[in-house]
């Protein structure tokens, strides 16, 4: 089996390799590069199709390589009915989109870059749907967000594109992180990190106390990616991208990743009351809101975008409904939607490309000028409207069958589905018919049929929607059946055909169509009502997004101005307050403070010296001008030096005298040069604050020192130095031997410090008027 997995590995990498050479290829062949580049997804399609018989027979395929084995991260894939169908959609539609892009962006200066991005996206998307390992899934998931960002911002000079790109990145990025957290929770609960193994864990997740957390986090990932209300707003904005992107990412594939995730995890997280309540509610709301918003639009792409939102809602609702029939309906609808919506988007792009506008009120009568486009549009619209003998009809029949149950909940869900489908019927036909029927209307460009690169995609998808329905036995055997079984976790028979059977489902279908026709006639009126309603509300999540972003930046600015205010005094106060806390709190909390020391029995001269030190400090504090304070500090320093001497450390004492003398002299000299105010003018509150902080820090250090002196000292180093200074190191002065021999390296470091300090001062003094590139114009050092 070594060759088959490695070929799949190649297939997973191939789009990225193609992305790398796409710009070069496009420079050489211009838009005709599309024909060559489309071979890549085609090759992948054929490769994946090769698995069909095996998977239809019910045996999933896994493979992969260890990636980071220490933490169980593998680059692994899992092909079953669900992932294989998705992979075929991604690669199949991908091939058509590459061709379509060739025509759509013909002559665009960045066409090579575009091919590159779209192929990268394709690689990410097929990786997402076939990934087995959690982290592989996450990596590809985020890659689809990143490539989507690049594609939405493709027309980068327009502010609307940039805003939409960032918005999509933020919303789907949020979802990606939520997904990651969810997957890690599942990993921690079940102990497995492969989807294929997870599917075999039975009720482990459902019975876990972390079920709710995992459920919400996974939903966060799915609902953002699949644009569920109220997180749907990024998807219509993403229509700023060139139409091939809208057709591919934002209707046929990427936005279904959320639905894919829910379907994938349905056997693990599904069949709970929570799942079967939350999903239909959000899905149903999204369905109705999406369709209503779609009726308001006059831009072909935006109309389609909102119906995409609605369709995703329908899919989520069906996935959460909880019986096998609904799942089969979801599966059929998903396949149908990918084909008809991808096709309709391409039609919209074609109309836009050829006529110069995609405003439905400025289009009409194009059927003569663009007959092939018209045919493709009608094929797609029939499927979208759920008319026989198209695949959309099968989907609608199946979902209605499943939902006719009679209890109140089912009826509510069913009513939602019927109204939603009715409204979608309207939009589908409005997009497919209005630009083509009626009297020809003057358009910005004189419209005629587009080149083969442009109409090949929509025509193929339209025909597929028809053929898949006509040969429903085959498509169920290879696609719908295995996919529904994978989603349900148990074998699900899918037997629906294009031949209408009298029954509740058929009557509901007919009712939907009647409803749709009714809405179609009143489209203008509904549009007016929706516009008035939205104006009355005056707020939407899209506006909310801007408000959140603005609020975030304002909040960030506020925090940063408060914390990093540029005032050195505040920085120092906070630092020393922290030091005081770091000293006192642990001593207090962990009982590490010193014992009360015995009252010292000192000779009177030692008391005197101590008193001088204290007086010095007191003088520093009460001194009226800075010079007095500096000299008083010197008094304290000298007193300490004397104490060192009395305690038998002449070297130390001498050093202390030197340091104190020098620092008093230097500080005093500096003070005469600086024009500082002679006294400080801090307000009393600040003085008290500073006093408290300084006092606490001092007390803390004092206590710590006291504590250390109260525990017995380990003399081993001192003894060693005593023993070996003279006999081995040949030095009588132990301090000197320590400095030059035992710890000579420290001295080397300190000497370097002195040297660098000198050099830094030199640079500080000598470099006066800096100008880039100017030679050293200052003096010699």
């Amino acid at each position, binding site marked *: 089996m070594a060759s088959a997995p490695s070929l799949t590995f190649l297939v997973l990498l191939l789009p990225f390799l193609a992305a790398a050479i796409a710009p070069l290829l496009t420079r050489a062949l211009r838009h005709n590069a599309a024909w060559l580049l489309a071979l890549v997804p085609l090759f992948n399609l054929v490769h994946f199709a090769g698995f069909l018989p095996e998977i239809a027979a019910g045996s999933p395929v896994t493979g992969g390589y260890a990636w*980071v084995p220490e933490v169980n991260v593998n680059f692994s894939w899992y092909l079953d009915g669900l992932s294989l169908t998705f992979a075929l959609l991604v690669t199949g539609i991908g091939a058509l989109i590459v061709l379509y892009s060739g025509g759509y962006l013909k002559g665009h200066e960045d066409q090579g870059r575009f091919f590159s991005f779209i192929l990268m996206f394709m690689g990410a998307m097929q990786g997402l749907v076939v990934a087995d390992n959690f982290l592989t899934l996450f990596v590809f998931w985020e890659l689809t967000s990143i490539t989507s960002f690049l594609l939405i911002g493709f027309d980068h000079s327009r502010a609307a594109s940039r805003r939409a790109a960032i918005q999509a990145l933020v919303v789907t990025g949020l979802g990606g*992180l939520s997904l990651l957290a969810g997957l890690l929770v599942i990993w921690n609960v079940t102990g497995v990190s492969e989807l294929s193994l997870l599917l075999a864990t039975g009720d482990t997740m459902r019975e876990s106390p972390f079920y709710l957390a995992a459920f919400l986090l996974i939903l966060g990932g799915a609902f953002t990616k699949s644009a569920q209300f109220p997180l749907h707003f990024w998807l219509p904005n993403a229509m700023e991208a060139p139409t091939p992107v809208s057709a591919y990412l934002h209707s046929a594939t990427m936005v279904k990743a959320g639905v894919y995730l829910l379907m994938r995890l349905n056997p693990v997280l599904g069949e709970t009351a929570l799942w079967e309540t939350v999903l239909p509610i959000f899905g149903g709301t999204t369905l109705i809101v999406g369709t209503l918003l779609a009726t308001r639009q006059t831009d072909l792409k935006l109309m389609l975008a909102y119906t995409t939102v609605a369709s995703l809602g329908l899919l989520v609702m069906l996935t959460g409904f909880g019986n096998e029939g609904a799942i089969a309906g979801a599966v059929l609808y998903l396949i149908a939607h990918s084909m008809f919506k991808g096709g309709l988007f391409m039609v919209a792009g074609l109309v836009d490309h050829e006529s110069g506008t995609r405003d439905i009120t400025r289009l009409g009568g194009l059927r003569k000028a663009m007959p092939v486009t018209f045919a493709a549009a009608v094929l797609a619209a029939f499927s979208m409207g759920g008319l026989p003998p198209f695949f959309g009809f099968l989907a609608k029949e199946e979902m209605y069958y499943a939902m006719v149950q009679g209890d109140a909940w089912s009826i509510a869900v069913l009513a939602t589905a019927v109204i939603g489908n009715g409204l979608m019927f309207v939009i589908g036909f409005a997009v497919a018919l209005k630009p083509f029927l009626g009297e020809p209307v003057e358009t910005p460009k004189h419209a005629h049929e587009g080149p083969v690169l442009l109409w090949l995609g929509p025509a193929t998808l339209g025909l597929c929607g028809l053929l898949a329905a006509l040969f429903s036995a085959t498509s169920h055997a290879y696609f719908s059946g295995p996919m529904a079984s994978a989603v349900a976790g148990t074998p699900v028979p899918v037997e629906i055909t294009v031949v209408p059977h009298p029954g509740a489902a058929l009557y509901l279908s007919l009712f939907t169509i009647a409803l749709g026709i009714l809405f179609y006639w009143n489209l203008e009126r509904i549009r007016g009502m929706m516009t008035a309603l939205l104006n009355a509300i005056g707020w939407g999540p899209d506006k909310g997004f801007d408000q959140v972003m603005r609020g975030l930046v304002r909040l960030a600015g506020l925090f940063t*101005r408060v914390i990093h205010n540029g005032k050195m005094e505040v920085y*120092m106060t906070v630092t020393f307050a922290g030091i005081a806390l770091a000293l006192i709190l642990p001593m207090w909390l962990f009982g590490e403070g010193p014992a009360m020391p015995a009252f010292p029995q000192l000779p009177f001269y030692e008391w005197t010296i101590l008193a001088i030190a204290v007086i010095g400090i007191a003088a520093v504090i009460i001194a009226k001008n800075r010079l007095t304070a500096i000299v008083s500090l010197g008094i304290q320093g000298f007193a300490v030096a004397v104490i060192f001497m009395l305690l038998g450390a002449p070297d130390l004492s001498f050093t202390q005298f030197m340091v104190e003398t020098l620092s008093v002299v230097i500080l005093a000299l500096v003070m005469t040069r600086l024009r500082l105010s002679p006294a400080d003018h801090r307000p009393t509150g600040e003085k008290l604050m500073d006093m408290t902080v300084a006092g606490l820090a001092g007390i803390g250090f004092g206590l710590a020192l006291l504590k250390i002196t109260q525990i017995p000292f380990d*003399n*081993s180093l001192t003894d060693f130095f005593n023993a*070996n200074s003279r006999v081995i190191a040949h030095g009588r002065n132990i301090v000197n031997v320590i400095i030059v021999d035992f710890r000579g*390296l420290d001295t080397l*470091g300190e000497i370097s410090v002195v040297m660098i300090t000198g050099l830094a001062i030199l640079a500080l003094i000598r470099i006066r008027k800096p100008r880039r590139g100017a030679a050293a114009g200052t003096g010699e*050092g």
Partner: protein
Amino acid sequence: MAGAASPHADLASAMVLQPVAAADWLVVAPVVIPIVFGAALLMFRKETQQHMVVSIIAFALLLLADAALLWRVIEHGPIVMTMGRWLPPFGITFQADVLGAGLATVAGLVAFAAVLFSFRDIDTTGRRYGFYTFFLLMMAGVHGAFLTGDIFNLYVWFEVLLISSFGLLVLGSEHEQIDGAVKYAFLNLVATTLFLIAVGLLYGAFGTLNMADLAGKIAAAKGQAPVMTLATLFLFAFAMKAAAFPVNFWLPASYHTPRIIVSALFAGLLTKVGIYALLRVLVMLFPVERDMLAIVIAWVAAFTMVLGILGALAQSDIRRAVGFVVVSGIGVMLAGLALGSELGLTAAILYALHSMIAMTAVYMLVGLMAEAGGSVSLHSLAGLYRAHPFMAALALVLFFAVAGLPPFSGVWPKVFVVKASLDVGAWWLAFAVLLTGLLTTITLGRVFALAFWRNHAEEPATMVPGDPITWKTYAPVVLLTAAVVFIGFYPQPVLDVAHAAARTILFSSGYVNAVLPAGGGA
């Protein structure tokens, strides 16, 4: 004065008698090379034309020494060498383990890239007044800190790198620079002094400075020494060096002021030395106390990362924003430290390695953006996507790496930190890490959209045509970006290093036994 031992002392009880294996001299090479070359450049400081060649040789040698050391440590275990051959714990020990050598190697790589970049950024004046000497001595300090096995010696190297970084910071003497340098110097001096005081107290409590020796003695301390207080002091001092909230004022106040290459170096190296010291001291010397402090560290980590990235979001000056991004990355490393598990520490170390490379590269990139667009302000910088597509590609890779998005180096440590947090139920810490990732994405996405995607409203009339940006200028950024991509796609080798490093500090017996084979002080 000296003890009255017999004139024929027992050398074996005081000194290491067997000669150091030739290959083990590698352990001091990363400190010796920069000091020697730094001194040489100081002597020939007027020959500014020669500085480039000499520096390239120096940094290439340094990188080689680092890499060879790492290889040897991985193959043969820790290398120990005691200065003056005094038996540990009496002399100063240099000791390379995977943690030190791993960080040193990445530091060497970053420095090598930086020296290539510096040719464009540093003028003759800068060279004459010691840019390369400061740089080399700073590398000596960084390497000394990574490789020393003695806690007072660690302080000395902190001082070396503090003062040489100060030299780099003021070089140029612009008003803004001096202001930043003053804040940098004073606040860092406070931190370093606190470190010194803590070392003094530690010595008073345990009578030794050798870290291997300390590890044993602290573990054996039975309620006498104020270990919690000591651990907290070290935590505070190093956290300040690492720029943790709330004592990170010095970083945003200074990092945007010097030459961009200096900022790049600082971002790559300085805070990570603080992180290294935290790992070494808290995990290896104070494991029990680290456990008690874990909740404090975790909150500090969460605040550091979230407030850090909010700081970045608030800026319109890209250099300032990137400084805050550095801070927020520190929070992620502290989170790993707070977790303290094998995975958590591995993630912290991996993040440190990633951050050294990525943040240095980001600063270099910002330098190129400023040069190409004539501004570092998001209000006026525009049009780079069209003018410099290659720069845009580098920016995308680096920005996504920093934000922790796949498939680049930042994603792995971030995933591991989140996983390690969830392992112990610290969901809020995981949330903070993920939130930081999202906010980073927003911040950098905004930079990309404005500086690269947005076109100039009109052709700027006063564009000063700088030197054209050639492949030589791109080379160091490309080198580091390649590392970021490599780690993203094939994290295994670097992860192995991080994992082994985490194990050396978590299970310190290997480290201790390498220094003190008898298992304790003489």
